[in-house]
């Protein structure tokens, strides 16, 4: 078989710079062959080696009392007591989902699930964070339909409930949608498995689907901007097989009850290459791999293709010598392919054999340790100062407040996302205590009193206007959602979606956003235990807004101390925690009603935020509150309306003190660190005492009332709405914005 000559062009096509190539030569001490070049190319791609982000990521806080495993493994692990741990992670599948929305999103879910169960955990809950272009962009409806169906198609078949998420629309995503998938699993702390290939002589076992020519160069594709030529790369799209993955999940968990396994890792991007190198790298060992033994789906596959294929639903594991037959037996029981394909060696090299020939022979450690790190240039965007300008005084006052509220509730960014989450099985496994629709999902941990609350959040408009503050708010808001459900925020996974890092402005944004995330995580004591960076979210030079999505997980010691956002009982007191202001910069209101995206996002005081969470947690533990809902997109007006849309038909009668604020700003500014809560009259006193002790401003602003939505300001009527009609607008907003009236 003749292989391409190594030429400068070929090296460049593999995404390696001259400098990278010199480094490669120094490591190898000779010219690479074609297969080796391919291996270097994927290992040194942005996607695998984080060359642009590594330095910034180092600054994130990654340790804490509850952290059992920080970044570096397949997923991070936190201790939740009772001998159990939660393993979770979020990952992007943006480019593939834009090209083929159903399969792209489906395989994204498949990938994140494997990351979780490869560590021994049973996945118990998924979330997803989605960004699409304008609702009436010609491709949006198609993409929404495909992505949602794909996430459902994979997760539903796996029997893992998808319990929450977020969906936002903005023109900056017209050519680059974002699909970020989160999963969380539970494992006994004594049974956590790592991706390590130790023990010379131990067998290396391949399990799962056969290898085809799927996604070859997928890992490098994820690190390229889209262009017209991407059309030609289309056959790299992969088809997910959730059924096989379900068998893989059950077989792996069955295997992990035994003591046969030394280490295990899924084959994700750059399949065999990444998994062998990473597993050997962690153990300081080597691997000898015989490609002749690798199960194949197609004929005539070359070593290059076999090493780089991204066929889904495959895992690599190392077992103790002598146990391989028992391991294979378990997989065969589940009708799965399982083959010994190699051996752990002690020489620190990855040696790949094909038909008796050595087709690659590389030193494991230098390949990852000496991977290129780019010190990218950064530059503050020249036009930023301009767009940060906003003269609030000069902003024309909106006097039709009911009209404004109605438009906000109908906006697909705020409207109910039922159309999305009804396509996800959110109740399988029978643990979903708080269903989608409230601030955070709450999942019981069977066999304990505990529950976990989880949410994903990011406001990319804020990040675009001020990445430091935007980064802080992404963390604060996701933690606030968890706290509103009665959970103590524990730890974070992130998905950092940005444009082309070779552009100094993008790098400027990236580093500032990292600063914001780091500081917020530090103050709120929620370390980052894993995540993923997705650069090059650009089409024809047009980049997305910086979108550092945060997945937050919190713990409820007692599941029955959970809260949701819905008003419950006539006559309960409604309170506002936090202070109002006119911080309307970057808000949904400003964008929707004034067509402007400018100003500074609301400011955030992280210490204040932390006190707020502490208060919510205390109140939840004492069962003082009937509901809690944070104010976010659409401000106080929208938060009050949303709390009125529960199953109980309970609205509210509110009288706000303007404190001198203009009424439209009072109702719709997105001032941070505010929460709308309700409680019985009996609990009011006790709750106010807690609030005072916590130094959190709390004021009674009205009461819960059946079938009513009425807001006065300083005793004057401001909003007198028909609750049923408001609810209907909010219910129908999503489908009618995306699919037009009557359709779907």
């Amino acid at each position: 078989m003749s292989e391409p000559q190594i030429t400068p062009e070929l090296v460049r096509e593999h995404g390696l710079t001259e400098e990278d190539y010199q480094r490669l030569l120094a490591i190898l001490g000779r010219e690479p062959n074609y297969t080796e070049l391919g291996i270097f190319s994927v290992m040194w791609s942005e996607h695998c080696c984080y060359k642009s982000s590594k330095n910034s990521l180092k600054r994130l806080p990654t340790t804490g009392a509850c952290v059992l495993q920080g970044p570096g493994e397949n997923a991070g692990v936190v201790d939740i007591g009772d001998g159990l741990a939660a393993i979770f992670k979020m990952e992007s599948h943006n480019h593939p989902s834009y090209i083929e929305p159903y399969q792209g999103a489906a395989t994204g879910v498949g990938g994140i699930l494997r990351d979780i169960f490869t560590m021994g955990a049973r996945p118990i809950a998924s979330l997803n964070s989605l960004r699409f272009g304008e609702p009436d962009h010609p491709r949006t409806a198609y993409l929404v339909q495909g992505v949602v169906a794909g996430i459902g198609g994979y997760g539903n078949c796996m029997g893992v409930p998808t319990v929450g998420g977020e969906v936002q629309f903005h023109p900056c995503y017209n050519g680059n949608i974002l699909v970020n998938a989160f999963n969380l699993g539970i494992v006994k702390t004594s049974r956590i498995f790592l991706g390590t290939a130790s023990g010379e002589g131990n067998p290396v076992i391949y399990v799962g689907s056969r290898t085809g020519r799927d996604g070859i160069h997928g890992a490098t594709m994820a690190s390229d901007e889209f262009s017209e030529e991407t059309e030609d790369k289309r056959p790299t799209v992969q088809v997910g097989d959730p059924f096989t993955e379900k068998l893989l999940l059950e077989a792996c968990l069955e295997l992990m009850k035994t003591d046969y396994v030394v280490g295990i890792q899924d084959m994700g991007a750059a399949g065999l290459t990444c998994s062998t190198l990473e597993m050997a790298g962690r153990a300081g060992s080597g691997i000898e791999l015989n490609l002749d033994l690798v199960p194949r789906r197609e004929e005539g596959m070359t070593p290059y293709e076999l090493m780089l294929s991204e066929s889904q639903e495959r895992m690599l594991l190392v077992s103790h010598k002598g146990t391989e037959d028992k391991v294979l037996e378990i997989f065969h029981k589940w009708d799965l392919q399982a083959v010994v394909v190699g051996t752990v060696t002690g020489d620190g090299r990855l040696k790949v054999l094909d038909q008796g020939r050595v087709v690659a022979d590389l030193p494991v450690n230098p390949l990852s340790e000496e991977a290129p790190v780019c010190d990218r240039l950064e530059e503050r965007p020249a036009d930023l100062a301009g767009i940060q300008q906003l003269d609030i005084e000069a902003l024309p006052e909106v006097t039709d407040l009911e009209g404004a509220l109605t438009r906000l509730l109908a906006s697909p960014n705020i409207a109910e996302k039922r159309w999305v989450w009804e396509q996800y099985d959110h109740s399988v496994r029978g643990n979903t205590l708080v269903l989608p629709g409230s601030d955070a999902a709450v999942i019981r941990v069977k066999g304990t009193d505990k529950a976990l609350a989880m949410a994903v959040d990011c406001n990319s408009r804020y990040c675009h206007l001020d990445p430091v503050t935007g980064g802080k708010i992404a963390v604060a808001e996701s933690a606030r959602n968890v706290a509103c459900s009665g959970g103590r925020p524990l730890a974070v996974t992130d998905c950092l979606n940005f444009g082309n890092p070779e552009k100094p402005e993008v790098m400027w944004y990236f580093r500032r956003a990292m600063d914001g995330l780091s500081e917020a995580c530090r103050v709120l004591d929620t370390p980052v235990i894993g995540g993923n960076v997705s650069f090059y979210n650009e089409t024809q030079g047009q980049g997305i807004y910086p979108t550092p999505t945060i997945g937050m997980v919190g713990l409820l010691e007692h599941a029955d101390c959970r809260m949701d956002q819905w008003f419950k009982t006539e006559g309960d007191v409604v309170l506002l925690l936090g202070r109002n202001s006119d911080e309307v910069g970057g808000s949904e209101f400003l964008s929707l009603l004034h067509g402007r995206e400018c100003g500074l996002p609301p400011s955030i005081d992280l210490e204040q935020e932390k006190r707020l969470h502490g208060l919510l947690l205390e109140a939840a533990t004492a069962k003082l509150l009937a509901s809690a809902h944070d104010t976010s997109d659409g401000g106080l007006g929208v938060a009050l309306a949303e709390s009125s849309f529960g199953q109980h038909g309970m609205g509210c009668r509110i009288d706000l003190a303007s404190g001198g604020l203009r009424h439209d700003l009072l109702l719709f500014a997105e001032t941070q660190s505010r929460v709308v809560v309700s409680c019985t009259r009996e609990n009011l006193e006790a709750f106010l005492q807690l609030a005072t002790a916590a130094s959190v401003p709390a004021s009674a602003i009205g009461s819960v009332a059946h079938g009513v939505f009425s807001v006065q300001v300083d005793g004057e009527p401001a909003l007198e709405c028909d609750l049923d009609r408001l609810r209907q607008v909010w219910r129908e907003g999503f489908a009618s914005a995306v699919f037009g009236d009557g359709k779907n």
Partner: protein
Amino acid sequence: MKLRVFVTLKPGVLDPQGRAVMNSLHALGFGSVEQVRQGKYLEIDLEGALSGEELSLQADEMCRKLLANTVIENYRFELAE
């Protein structure tokens, strides 16, 4: 006019359904089955007076735009009275 459209996965694209059907046929004793690929079949009734050539163009457009996902699928169609 009747338009019959056959949509199949491109060669090389994984077909988990086809594989499951094959395994099941084997289990049922149909050992001679070597491969199964599952696709879609659509029967479409058309009215109107387009000519053969124009009709073909229109059918082709339907397939490309909607009926087949050309990223992973091929299509073929037949027109009949």
